[in-house]
């Protein structure tokens, strides 16, 4: 394309797009609290982040996911392509299933994590936090595949919380309760296709809904109508940030640096170092990072990613982790967890520290009315997520 043709498009004049749900989210955003997520204006909070969090844990919350970077991978070699791209064995991911995945550089360092939706035989959607088109196209060399970024062509909502299934049932999605975790189904919705997956970023029962942006408003209205008596609330990024820490989910750019955006090469992390060794399959043939990860397995990792249960009630944001007087790691995410009733954190520790039950010290700086204090608190490595209700896994999904 010629430069003049490109400039004639004028697309770059719009810096941030309103989401297809903006006409509904805008009046609901009492705080007028907006941030930027990818190409979109995204609500950081609507009314009160604590209440939004509480809605997700007790009734259900709706989060606008449209800005999530989405790619569609199709063509005769799509499975071979996906298997070379990510570390896990995608051949085990049947049509109608969703899988969490990470993908690496040749050096075995994580570029990003995301979810693979096997929509139909050989037809995949890859969702990620970061833009990936350059890497995905590089990966396509030698494969008969089509790679399209369709972020703008798919409007998406996350509906998360105990009453999420009941809300979808009330909206008319018959049989939704029988969908297994990480399942997906296509429904007819007002003449278009609505894809629903039992996935989410909150560690609770929850679903994600994917639809043509032209039907976004209709979906929002039907959803809120159905959830009216089930406590449905819009939620923003702040609340989601709390929910995901309780669930123990890591976030790119927060808990690890995406390898392709990292200047200092030693600041990247491998899947093993992020506690995601279970996503690495060495028996499936060549994949990006295979050789480096085999070598790491042999030699040992540099870091461990752990969950910490910290005494007291002060969030240990940005703290160092000490063993005696020696710094052995840092905290990457921390919060007071209302559900676990504990101060919790995600941390990166230098290997070999970090076996479940290991105790360390963290320094927490906090202030009371502008007066700073410091407390040294004991942090215990825990294995499981801080918040892990059985309903997350139950099928049929329970009614609340």
């Amino acid at each position, binding site marked *: 394309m010629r430069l003049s043709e490109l400039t004639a498009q004028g697309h770059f004049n719009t810096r941030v797009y309103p989401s297809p749900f903006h006409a509904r989210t805008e009046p609901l955003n009492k705080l007028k609290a907006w941030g930027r997520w990818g190409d979109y204006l995204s609500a950081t909070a609507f009314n009160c982040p604590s209440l939004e969090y509480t809605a997700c844990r007790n009734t259900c919350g709706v989060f606008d996911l449209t800005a999530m970077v989405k790619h569609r991978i199709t063509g005769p070699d799509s499975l071979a392509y996906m298997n070379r791209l990510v570390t896990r064995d995608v051949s085990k991911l049947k049509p109608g299933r969703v899988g969490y995945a990470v993908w690496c550089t040749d050096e075995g360092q994580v570029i990003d994590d995301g979810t693979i939706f096997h929509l139909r035989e050989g037809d995949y959607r890859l969702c990620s936090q970061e833009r990936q088109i350059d890497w995905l196209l590089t990966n396509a060399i030698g494969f008969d595949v089509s790679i399209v970024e369709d972020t703008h062509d798919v409007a998406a909502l996350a509906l998360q919380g105990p009453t999420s299934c009941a809300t979808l049932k009330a909206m008319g999605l018959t049989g939704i309760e029988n969908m297994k975790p990480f399942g997906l189904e296509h429904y007819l919705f007002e003449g278009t296709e609505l894809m629903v997956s039992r996935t989410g970023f909150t560690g609770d029962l929850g679903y994600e809904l994917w639809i043509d942006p032209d039907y976004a408003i209709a979906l929002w209205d039907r959803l809120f109508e159905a959830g009216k008596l089930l406590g449905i609330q819009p939620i923003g990024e702040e609340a989601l940030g709390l929910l995901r820490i309780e669930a123990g989910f890591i976030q790119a750019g927060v808990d690890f640096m995406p390898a392709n955006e990292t200047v200092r090469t030693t600041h990247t992390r491998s899947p093993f170092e992020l506690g995601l060794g279970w996503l690495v399959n060495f028996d499936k043939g*060549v994949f990006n990072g295979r050789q480096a990860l085999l070598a790491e397995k042999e030699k040992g990792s540099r870091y461990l990613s752990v969950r910490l249960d910290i005494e007291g009630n002060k969030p240990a944001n940005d703290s160092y982790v000490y063993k005696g007087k020696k710094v052995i790691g840092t905290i990457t995410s921390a919060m007071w967890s209302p559900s676990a009733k504990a101060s919790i954190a995600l941390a990166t520790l230098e290997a070999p520290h970090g076996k479940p039950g290991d105790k360390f010290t963290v320094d927490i700086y906090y202030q009371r009315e502008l007066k700073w204090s410091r407390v040294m608190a004991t942090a215990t490595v825990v294995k499981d997520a801080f918040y892990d209700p059985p309903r997350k896994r139950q099928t049929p999904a329970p009614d609340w």
Partner: protein
Amino acid sequence: MTDKNKVVIIGGGHNGLVCAAYLAKAGKQVTVLEAAEQVGGAAITREFAAGFKVSAGAHLLYLLDKDIGKDLALESHGLQMAKTAMSTIALAENGQHLTFSGNQVSGEGVSSEDKAAMVEYHRFMTRFAGIIGKLHNQIPARIRLDDRGDLISLAKTAWSIRSMGKTDMREFLRMAGINIYDILKENFENPLIRGALSLDGVLGSFLGPRSNNSVYCALHRWSGSGEMAIAKGGMGAVTQAIANAARKQGADIRSSAPVSRILMDNGQVQGVELENGEQLMAGTVVSNADPKTTFFKLLGARHLEAGMVRKIQHIRMRGNASKLHLALNGRPEFTGLDETQTGERLVIAPTIEYVERAFNNAKYGEHSTGPIAEITIPSLHDDSLAPAGQHVLSAVIQYTPYELKQGWPDAKQAFTDRVIDLIAQYAPGIREQIVHAELLTPVDIEREFRIQGGHWHHGELALDQFLMMRPVPGIAQYQGQVDGLYLCGAGSHPGGGVMGSAGRNAANAVLASKPVDDQ
């Protein structure tokens, strides 16, 4: 598990054959598979007109490694020189040519300053090229701190530069990355000297004299024995001798056996499949093909990790040089040259600005309107190439980009005429002597020699594609990512020219690899 003692070598170019000879000598069971009817790759002698034979690819021998010659006893396998210690004659239209011989330059109008400068130029170029020459027979060190061997190798290279003394070291470090235009301007005043010497920096490359890396290219050219020679029987005799040496060591060499793909299983090489469907199983496969052909066409990009694919895709290897072959019914008469002089290396590069302008066209996807040439008439030294009293002219012609906007099918005839006109400016009667003319453009070179992009060095000679970065970091030690697959061609260190070092280094890399049981 496939047998690692079995080695299949894809391609019987000079490097593939050298590699075969060394591996067979070390006890490996070696099979060389050459796609063409005769082995030799781009170092072959073939008929191009009835009764006329020529070195169809490379035509001058100046880099062939002396140790390889000795190790493989090439003389006892039939290698003879028809002409050694060739001079270079820079052609002038008025017949006032200049002759370069060793560190001397002579001819009408050469100043005493230029004569002195030539002595000094020859001294430092030889010395600096020696640094590069020393690296030829090394497996490039990786830049890392955790391997003693690599550190020692890097330290040796650093020491060989430092031990030149302050003045030469500074000059070497200053010159190595810059362009030959500046260096020649600094040293010489005679336009024809500048033009002729600049060819060393640009022949075979996508560079003009003002392009960075042209000094490095010249140093590469100077990094061999320091003299040019023509083999008796042409370049084909060189590769035939190497093939004979390999056979003597027990290597099985098959021609007309094109490989269609490298067989893989879970990251481990299993062997190769021929175009006729035949499969040869082997735990080690060594490819003499260029890196892009090897990894994209024969292996398939999907068997590499994507970062490596990207690196290989970015190798610069678009050919810019063509070969012209003329069958002549008599000895060409160059104005002002006697018969002995006609047998030297003749170059057409009247001024360095002319060479730069010749390159300008190539930058925009056009062939030169005023091309440059390196001409030899090997039949003056070797009567096996043409019928008695008749001759062959072999010339390297630049600039002729692989990706020609006009397309080579349309442009080829007119360009051939243009080149003949150019030569006729210096040898006025030559057009009438032509029995047959053949021009191999980079597209023809790609087809005949199976080199993607038709770049006879299998990739630009440049500092960013040099040593531990040739062809790309991660495969510069002749192997990488694919267990059991090695490279032995000019795409690997130390690069192009009929040298053999890449083949031998690759053989050493194969022999140094640990048996599977130990891994």
